[in-house]
Structure formats: C-alpha cells, structure tokens
C-alpha cells in the first residue's frame, strides 16, 4: 500500500468509512454536477449519530 494513503489509513474508523463512501460516490457520479453535496451530508449524518 502506497505511503501516500497513510492519512486515510490512520483515520479513526468513522472518518475512514466516510472517506471510502464519499470517494465511491464520486467515482459513480463523476459527471454529475449538482446534488453531490447533499449526498455527502447524508453519508456524514448516517455515520455520525
């Protein structure tokens, strides 16, 4: 695993989950311009309760 990813690897579990879910969401919606912010808020709210 590349060292460049260390800041993510070292993150607490909840933060790592948010990062993984946000990046997966971005990959699936690479050409979508609107509405992504709200999806990201949902991801954070679901993870931090």
């Amino acid at each position, binding site marked *: 695993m590349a*060292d460049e990813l260390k800041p993510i690897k070292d993150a607490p579990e909840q*933060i790592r989950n948010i990062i993984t879910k946000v990046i997966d969401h971005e990959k699936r919606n690479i050409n979508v311009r609107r509405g*992504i*912010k709200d999806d990201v808020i949902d991801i954070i709210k679901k993870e*931090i309760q």
Partner: protein
Amino acid sequence: MKLVSLQMCNFRQFYGETPLIRFATDNQNVTVIHAENGAGKTALLNAFTWLLYDSHTKGFGSPEEKVNKRALAEADIGSTVEAWVKLSFEHNGTLYEIRRQSDAIKVSDTEWSLKPERSAQLLYAGEDGQWLPEEKVTEAIGRILPKDLHTYFFFDGERIERIVMPTKKEKADLAAATKKLLGVEVLDRAITHLNDARGALEKELKRIGDPETLLLLDQKEAKESEQEDLESELDQLQTNVDGLIESKTEVENRLRALEGVQDLQKRRDQLNDDLDARKASLGQTQEKLKQAIAKDGFAVFVEDVADDFRELIESLRKKGELPVGIKKRFVQDILDQASCICGRPLDAEDAPAARAAVEAWMQKAGSDDVEKAANEMGILIDSMQEKVPTFWDTISNAQSKEGTDRTEISEIEGELDDIKKKLEGSPREEVSSLQSRLSKLEEDITQTNKDIGATDVNIKGVSAEIAELQEKIAKHKGLEDQQNLANRRVNAAVDARDRIKQVYENLNERLRKKLEESINKYFHQISVSPYVAKLDSAYSLELFDESINVPIPVARSQGESQVLCLSFIAGFVDLAREWSAQRGENLAGPDSAEYPIVMDSPFGALDTTNRRHVTEHINRVADQVVMMVSSTQWRGEVSGASAGKVGKSYVLSYHTPNDDLDDKVSVDLNGQMYDLVRKSPNEFEYTEVIEVEHG
C-alpha cells in the same frame, strides 16, 4: 483509445468517400501517411480534432469551410452536399464509432451557404453486437481522452513550440487534465463536496449552537471570506505578472529586430544569461557557507573550553589520578567475592581488618568511567580542533567566491545599466520609447512579484487563524446533545476533507515526480543533448544544464522543444500505464492506458541525428503512432530507422489543376512508385487516399 479506422467524405481536399484508413497496431504500430505540402496532411490531422473535440489546429485555414469544392461544383443548385468524418476506435474492450458532419447548400454556380454544424454522434457496440447511441458525447470522449490534453496527442510538429511553452492558463488546464486522465479528479471532487457539506453542517450548528459557538463560527466565516479575497487577489497578481512578462518579451523582440540596436540587445541578452548564471552561483556559494557554519561552526567556539579541558586533564595526571591506577570496579569485585587476589579471606565477620583495608582502597581507586570519558573527550576535542583550519579555509574560499560573484554581478548590472541608458537616450524616438517601456515593465514585474510574496504570506497567516478557530470549535463542548452531535458532524467533515486533501497532495507530488522521471527517460533516449527536463508544481516544463553544480535553465532549440514534447507524451503514456496497473491501491486511476498519437510533420525542426533518434524510438512513444510526412521529411535516415515499425502506410495523392506541373512527384515505397502529386483530369484540386502495399 485504440484507433481502428478513419473514413472521410468530401472533407476539405478529400473528394467523395475515401477508402477506410486502417491504423497499425501491435508490434508494427506505426501508420505513415505520405503527402506533399497542401495535399491534406493538416486536413487529416484536423479530421481527428474536429471529429473528437470540435476544434482545429492553428495551421488549418478557414476552418468553417469543410465541404470539398469539387463536390460542391458538381452538385445541382439548391442541393445539399455533405462532408463527414467517421472514426472507429476501441476503448476498454468496447468498440465505438464517432461521426461528425458539416453540410453546405449550393446557392448558385459560385456561391454556397453553410448549414449549422451538427453535433457528433457516438455509437458503441453493445454486448449483443448492436450499435447503441451514447447520449453525452462530449463527456464520454472527455473521459477517454480529455479535450485539454488533446493537443498533446494530435499535433502539428511544426507548431510544437506552443505545446512546451504553454501560457499560465494552458499550464493550469494541462495540470487539471493530467489529473483528470489519471483519475485523481475524484479526490479533487471529494474535497470540494466535503467542504461544501462542512459549510452546510456549520449552518445547522449555528442554528442550535450556544453563544460561544456562534461567536467562533462568525469569526471563522469572516476569516474564510478574507482568505477567499486574498486568493483571488493572488490569482489576479499572477495573471498580471504573466501579462507583464509577455509584454516584456514582446518589447525585447522588437528591440532585437530594430536595425542599429540589434547588437546592443544581443549583448544585453548575453549579459542577462551571464547574470542568471552568476546569481545561481552566488546562491550556491551562500548555501555552502550556510552548511559549513551549521555543520562545523561551533568548533571555533570550543577552543577556550578545549584549553580548560587540557589543563584539567594535565592536573589530574600530575596528581596521579589519571591514568587510574586501580579501578573501583576491581576493588568492588574483590569485596563481593570476599576473597583477595592473594587468597586471603575478606568476609566481614572472619577478617574484618583485612576487609576494612581493602574497602579503604575504594576511596583511592579511580572510576574507569572518568578515564573512559576523559579519553573520549580528548579524541573529540582533537577532532574538533582539527576541523577549525579546514572550516576557516572553506569559509575563506566561499567568501572569496561570494566576493567574486558579487563583483561580477555588479559589473554585469553596470553594463546592463549602460545599455539601458544608451537606448533610453537614443536619438531614435522608437528606440528610446521602447526602452522606457521596457524599464517600466521591469519595475512593474519586480513590484508585482513583491506583492505576490506579501499576499502569499497573508494567505498563510489567515489559513493558520482559520485552523486555530476550527480547533476551538471542535474542542468546545456545548450543553445540549443536539449541539454536540452537530459539532461532531462538522468535525468529521473537516477531518475527512483534510485527510483526502493530504492524500491528494501526496499523490499529485508523486504523479509529478514520476512524470518528470518518465519524461527524462525518453528525452535521454531520443535526444543527444545532456540537459535534464524539470516539471515544476505548476506543470511548467523546462530544460536545465546540470553539468555545473547549480542547474541552470537553458534556452531550448526548436528541435529540443520537439523532442521534449515527444518525451512528455511518451512519459505521460508510461505514467498512465503504471497508474492504471496500480489502480486498486491508488484510490483512483484511469480506466485504460492505451493512447494513440497523431502527428503532422513530426520531424519539422529536427536535425539528421535527432530525426534518426526520434524514428528509432517512435514506436515506443505511444501504443499507436500515426505520422504524416512529406517526401523531404521521409529521408534516408527516417525511412531506414523506421524499418520493422511501420504496419500501415497510405499516400495522399494530390491532383492539381495547375498546368505548370512538368512531372509527376512520386515516392518509392516497398519497391513500388506512388504518385504524390499528379495532374488533375479536371479543373479541380483534390486528394485521393491510396493504401501502400506492404510485402
């Protein structure tokens, strides 16, 4: 993207439907298109750029006129003549076909009107072999090979300079497109959207937060707005300095072209180069001074302490305390064993007197630690003192070098000042006004650079204040659970954003370094020049001479620029391949790493050696190479070095109505003669595509 075939119909010089131009792949991946000037090389290059990106290269005159003149002349008045280009290509195992069309209506025998151009149509082959339409053509092509990068893959060799000397905007586009193609864009978007989410979550926190939270959030908001203003100010200043530098180059070029002052301007160019070299040398000398002082400077200050130490040791020796006669450890061991070396018992009960006598030695015995430390310290002090003369030599040499550099710099600046005064005082108004303008531009550049530095410092200061406020908000515990939950969510958004940002910066830096390494690998394979290519963080590509200690930027020849551009492409393709292979562990990466390059006149400005070197390596520059060459460009060294690499060849046979054509112009390919230029059977010029037989 793997090119399969291209077909054109009534597109520019190409009358009627051309045969399919099939592109070479695999081991013999080079496709050569032979054509004389004006026969359609540039039109063919533009068939690609128009079709895929709706753009044209600079050498493509009257770009709106796509329809072939002969086809228009032969059409009935009122009828529509279509010009189209169709390309088949593969990407990620899927076959695509893209087609773009331009129509003209014949109004009279000499006039026609152009219909608005239609959008390109992109089809892809579904799993059952059925052609399906791709709705978002621009986005789909952009994902395969971004528009901002297309000039690196479809280019005119004779106009290559622009590619390796991009403007600030072009550099920014190149950096963005490189990241897009390599898949890092996903992270960029994640950072933006997490930051937007952070803003929205902060608003929620503000609605329910206590007064202290509100105060901190207001302060942070104000600082963020200040940071935004400063960043746009910095951007404006950088644009200004770019514009000023461009204007300065323009004025210098005009002075270079003026009769009577050319020599002065040339001398000034030379002096400016010398000044850069001297300043670089001064920088290196100062660095050397700094390092010498940091490493050995302390040795000068220990001389007095060294004398004290020696005095102390000497007095210990005189007292007989050094070297230590009997060691404490030895006495202690005897006492522990309760038996003397002579065999007498030393236990406290049976032989108290003997034990007391030996115990008394403990007071007289020296510590071996003291002796060891004294010895080690002595060696250290000797080595420190040995350093002193060498240190002073280094300092003295560096200071003398610094003095020489400063004198030289001052002399060069004096001569530059004289030239400036001469030009300013020139009786020729044109000369004096150009020089005044140049002086003003130089002042403005200096001032703008100072402003850039100051703004940069301000931005860093404000960023630190924002981070501090963010930390205070994160640590602040509210009374309500609801507020604490909202605060935790804001903190999670900030933490996730900052971690992705760090990874993004790490990956960008790795990408840039890898790209630079790959560029140099190809540059040194192709070019005979000893220079080293450096790609800075703004994606500016420069050549440096590293034969002396301080790398000095060198002015590139057109040939070097061309080789540098090819090396950039080859390096880029290499990097994309590697990145794609490591996709799983990199979070991001391109879908596919197969790229073609299409070059018009790739040997434009190269000398014989570079032509041969480029040809020898051309098949490795990209997965597929399409090059368009004239008969003079396809000379012995090129055709010889390309043996075994060319899988497909075509001739663009130009038919001219010109009566002056005495003889046909032909080229011998694989033992057969092909006409490059021949007499047209009618009054029209047009080009026919002929496939060359490969034996």
